[in-house]
């Protein structure tokens, strides 16, 4: 198996496996965040559970971090290898004649998502880890109530941040528009080439980013106190 993951195809499979985990994670993350549109308490309870449950914290979270880092590092490694394989560039190349913009520019949508993740870590993850594991406050409390909802609303005050989030989610949508079906193909499944899954992929790649955009805009426009 060691040889397998060193081969070009093994690396594709590894990219696809990490992609599947990340796509599943996006559904989970969006589901929790959507609660914030309807109920402060429900969002706080769900966030508190995700932030303190040992399975989520010490099993899923490390897998997520490894998955994200792996997907980016391997993405860059493969991009560099592919550029080397290309040799001299064409003077005239009509890529649009045979493939989608999304499929040809995964590295750029990926870099945009990476930049977003750095911002997102500074915004939420680092303060969270600092509160819990550095300051030792596992309660998730703020002024006597759970702090998560308050924190979320506060972050979406700044229109620049909201704008950055919206742009990043558009890039996420573009990345998923190719990535969703591509992951199936890499895993050796032709399901991604069938209409049903292609349509599901389209819905997924629009619905997930749109959900996050709606949440950011909702709190910015209607919850800005």
């Amino acid at each position, binding site marked *: 198996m060691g040889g397998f993951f060193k081969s*070009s195809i093994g690396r594709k499979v590894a990219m696809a496996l990490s992609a599947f985990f990340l796509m599943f994670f996006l559904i989970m993350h969006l589901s929790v965040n959507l609660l914030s549109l309807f109920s402060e308490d429900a969002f706080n309870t769900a966030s508190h559970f995700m932030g303190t449950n040992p399975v989520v914290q010490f099993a899923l979270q490390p897998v997520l971090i490894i998955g994200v880092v792996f997907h980016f590092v391997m993405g860059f490694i493969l991009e560099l290898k592919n550029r*080397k394989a*290309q040799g001299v560039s064409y003077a*005239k*190349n009509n890529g649009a004649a045979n*493939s989608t913009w999304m499929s040809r520019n995964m590295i750029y949508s990926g870099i945009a998502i990476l930049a977003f993740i750095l911002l997102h870590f500074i915004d939420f993850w680092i303060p969270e880890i600092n509160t819990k594991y550095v300051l030792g406050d596992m309660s998730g409390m703020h002024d006597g109530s759970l702090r998560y909802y308050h924190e979320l609303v506060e972050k979406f005050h700044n229109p620049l941040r909201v704008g950055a989030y919206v742009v990043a989610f558009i890039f996420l949508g573009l990345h998923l528009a190719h990535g969703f079906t*591509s992951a199936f193909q*890499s895993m050796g499944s032709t399901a991604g080439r069938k209409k049903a899954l292609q349509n599901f992929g389209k819905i997924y790649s629009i619905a997930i980013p749109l959900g996050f955009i709606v949440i950011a805009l909702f709190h910015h426009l209607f919850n800005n106190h």
Partner: protein
Amino acid sequence: MNLTLKIWRQKDTSSKGQMVDYKVTEISEHMSFLEMMDVLNEQLVNSGEEPVAFDHDCREGICGMCSMYINGEAHGPDRGITTCQLHMRMFNDGDTITIEPFRAAAFPVIKDLVVDRTSFDRIQHAGGYISVNTSGNTQDANAIPISKHAADEAMDAATCIGCGACVATCKNSSAMLFVGAKVSQYALLPQGQVEAADRVQNMVAQMDLEGFGNCTNTGACEVECPKGISLDNIARMNRELMKASI
């Protein structure tokens, strides 16, 4: 029709090439692209210049020799064809046509538009065959039951002529459509299944060794392939390699 041609000229593998402009006149729209190139070369020879070197052989779309990246597409702006099957009626009078060799680090330029595609031969040598002893004891092919579906898919994969348009088109210079087709044509049939695991491992290892890139499933190869080889063959190769490695 009268045309301006921008053609990549390169003396040999080690020298630096460049695009050079040429004019051709009175080109018939019924000519094939290679015939148009013949007209240009006659013109060049008559004026004492070095003709443009380009690959060609059967000129009927089955040998896979003619290459050329024409106006940004492998085999030019038409579907399901090789360059010898591309007709000048696809262009308009007064057009400027850009003609480049197939580009990939694993396809070094030999001269002008001729590239070295022996990397494909070495991939084939690594496993693109079956080791059947045919000396005097050949079995009747019809004695082995094969489903119509498998036979059709194997035949479709076997129509690959190894021209390299997939590699030339791929932004990653990946050879996976070619190798996928070769792996598939045997993996689908009982005679090929005996050596399927070794075959896919050896062919993929050779493909990686030759310096071809990684497939990112853009699907460009399938669109530009003169034989319409399906991306399903790449998925099958991925499955075969997983199966062989576990």
